[in-house]
């Protein structure tokens, strides 16, 4: 799963190393996609309107459904977040912290576009 990545690939940092998800061209600015990770885990990968990529866990901790990748992006105080499509809680894309409930968070994965 960790073959050398072609230029323009988006990669997520997992404990086992950089994981190649897709070409950056597969992403739509302002929206997300789901990425299948090893062992049936999944991440939500986003391209913000400034062109930066962000990845967090795809499972919405409030409902247990794997839907964060389908949420809408926004920014608060300059930091991008995604609003869950189900009950609308917002998650910071850099840290995975829920902005509406301190006790909730999802994993955050460093993400990059390979040069």
């Amino acid at each position: 799963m960790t073959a050398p990545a072609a230029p323009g690939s988006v990669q997520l940092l997992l404990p086992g190393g950089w994981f190649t998800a897709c070409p950056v061209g597969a992403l739509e600015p302002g929206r997300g996609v789901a990425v299948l990770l090893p062992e049936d885990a999944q991440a939500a990968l986003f391209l913000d309107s400034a062109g930066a990529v962000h990845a967090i866990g795809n499972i919405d901790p409030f409902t247990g459904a794997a839907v964060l990748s389908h949420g809408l992006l926004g920014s608060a105080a300059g930091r991008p977040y995604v609003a869950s499509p189900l009950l609308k809680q917002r998650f910071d894309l850099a840290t995975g912290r829920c902005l509406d409930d301190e006790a909730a968070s999802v994993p955050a994965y460093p993400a990059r576009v390979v040069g």
Partner: protein
Amino acid sequence: MDGMDNPTPGAARPAPQPAPAPTIVLVGHGMVGQRFLEALADRGVAGRARVVVLCEEPRPAYDRVHLTSYFSAGARPDDLALVPEGFMARYGIELHLGDPAVAVDRAARTVTARSGLVVRYDTLVLATGSYPFVPPVPGRDAEGCFVYRTIEDLLAIEAYAAGARTGTVVGGGLLGLEAAGALKGLGLRTHVVEFAPRLMPVQVDEGGGKALRRTVEALGVQVHTGVGTQEITAGPDGKVAAMALSDGSELPTDLVVFSAGVRPRDELARACGLPVGERGGIVVDAACRTADPAVYAIGECALAADGRVYGLVAPGYEMAEAAAAGIAGAEASFTGADLSTKLKLLGVDVASFGDAHGAAEGCLDVLYSDPRAGIYRKLVVAPDGTLLGGVLVGDVESYGVLRPLTGTVPPVAPEHLVLPAGAGAPVAFGPAALPDAAVICSCHNVAKGAIRAAVAEQGCTTAAEVGRCTRAGTGCGSCAKVLGQLVDTELAAAGIAVDKGLCRCFAQTRAELYETVLALRITSYRELLDRHGRPEARGGEGCEVCKPTVASILASLAPTIGLSGHVLDAGQAALQDTNDHFLANMQKNGSYSVVPRIPGGEITPEKLIVIGEVARDFGLYTKITGGQRIDLFGARVEQLPRIWARLVAAGFESGHAYGKALRTVKSCVGSAWCRYGVQDSVRMAIDLELRYRGLRSPHKLKSAVSGCARECAEAQSKDFGVIATAAGWNLYVGGNGGATPRHADLLAKDLSDAELVRLIDRFLMFYIRTAERLERTSVWLERIGLDHVRDVVVHDSLGICAELEQLMADHVAGYRDEWADTLDDPERLRRFVSFVNAPDTPDPTVRFVPERGQIKPLLPLTVIS
């Protein structure tokens, strides 16, 4: 790679405690018990102590106060839940459902539960509530006799009522009348038998009782006052058949609900030797401690320091706070509370507050009564002008302002205050005039001062935000109106211009943005945000409020401003709400539903067969909707294009169930078949649905056409509804079902087909232009007034009707089916994949289990609870 995908947020579970933590045992998880747990959590105690809850009922705490909404507003048991999501897990609270405490050993400090579980406690809190009192009448155990206290009681009554025709409530107090409302709602002929000479004897006086009786009887409930129940007789099958009354009469009835008061559940306390009152109730001091300092009692089971047992939730909440404070080592006390009540029975407005009976020395009654209208209002005033209390029947508009004024000398003479709204009260008297100490929300004991502080200091700008900060308005809801008014006046007074802006990105309202887009022909969100957004939001990402709103405005105006009408095209796709983005509605497990348009509800057998085949081939759950069409549930995102390819090939189009757009135009069968029909309602419904399909609007739009005045299509509950007359069509507007039902208003009569369509064109475009985000036509119409709407769309008072008609003509000419266009375009189709790196691999978390021969979602384990 172990553990890397573990989605459990570390912060959700407290670290294990090294030293043995003190144990707090709560017996009873009712309304007050739950409030106590929240108070412990607020004070940080729940994280430090082991908290064990023994709950007798099979479900966690729920909103008993709104029990009747199960019948009146269709609430399901889950809707009444009181425990915030994830609450127990977050604080590590151990909740034992269906396992009541059966014994307390105070010497050993242990509680034994029915299951045999024994828990040692450092602190024990009894919150066991009350049980309904059933008078010792012979026959009270017959099958068909019920009480009204728990969700299980309601379920049992509901099940039994299915085979019953008549129901009788014993007791005409607050709860008895609620129970009567519930029986009525179940379709039973309903009687209320009250021993006292009037209804609600505790809350209202004689005059109020009379007015109340008239209103209750007008609802179809038969009232018998001044009579007692002597015996309940059962038929040969052992089921209730009749009730013998003390005046010698007999009342045939199939079902009996006892609502003759409640008694504190103090049996555990008695058994372990704690003092209880003469008439029941566990004796506690002002700190809610019993005679044993390790044991507290709170809520309806406690006999408070002022010698009373309180049967209302607000005093119970205060006791919960006091006990939690005491356990946390702080000080708080409960010495007594207000007994104001507002009846929630559908269709009857009754409220009483303070000294409603005028028991105080030398007090005077100020009365207003209009027997014809069923209005009775009485204020009790002390000789010095202090408002002491009151009774309001039939018109309780001013309850929210009057209650907090209790104990003060109101700034307006009582003769003026007693007049009902609209009876020529000379002064408009609002919450602004209340003193800071006035308690606005009595459920949570929140004074006006605290609400002002929430606005001024904590930056709350809406009633909902104030509710989150202070809890005001989150109990029985009777203060919601005053709370809203207060927040607005406070915002204005604090010089914080009431920000009517759409969101943190735009200072404009939706209507203003619409005008900007139309006037400047703006075609992109980026341009709108960067040029017209709030300075701090420019260049940013926007937010989930304004993006879909702007997307909707762009879609409504697309043909006019020269934009592709397709919601998934460049620049527009990223703005759409999740549902619009996938042209389907997301369900609770992340799967989607599919709703093909069935104009007017008319469908050929062939098309029905196609829907059946598609549902079968993709394994979808199939349901007839309330909108005369068929919903197919459980599609995974990557299946949507294949499903729609089949449907489009068979001639179906998108039904826009996912959009804030026209939904359905329901029809009745009309003159083609019905012996009463005077016009062809099906044809008109189809014409209207095809004309307005795809029209994006501030909120969803629904319509219906009935073929005669019998109104089988329920047109008067629709945003625009049409009813046939011998001469043509009557057009009704601003109707709403849903959460706040509203009957539509007649806009114009006896219209020809062409006149009807023209008026609807204007009406809809005027609404789309001027309504706020998520404002249904009903709310919009209330806000701007029917007369104004009629002036504009019928009499063209603003001279914009030609423009409105042109906008609609553009829409009709530009309409294309969203799904057909999506299937034709690989670029639009790209998003319909499960995973970007495994497009056809089904999402392993979307799973189903069988139910009644179909499927239902299997919910993945929720992490936050």
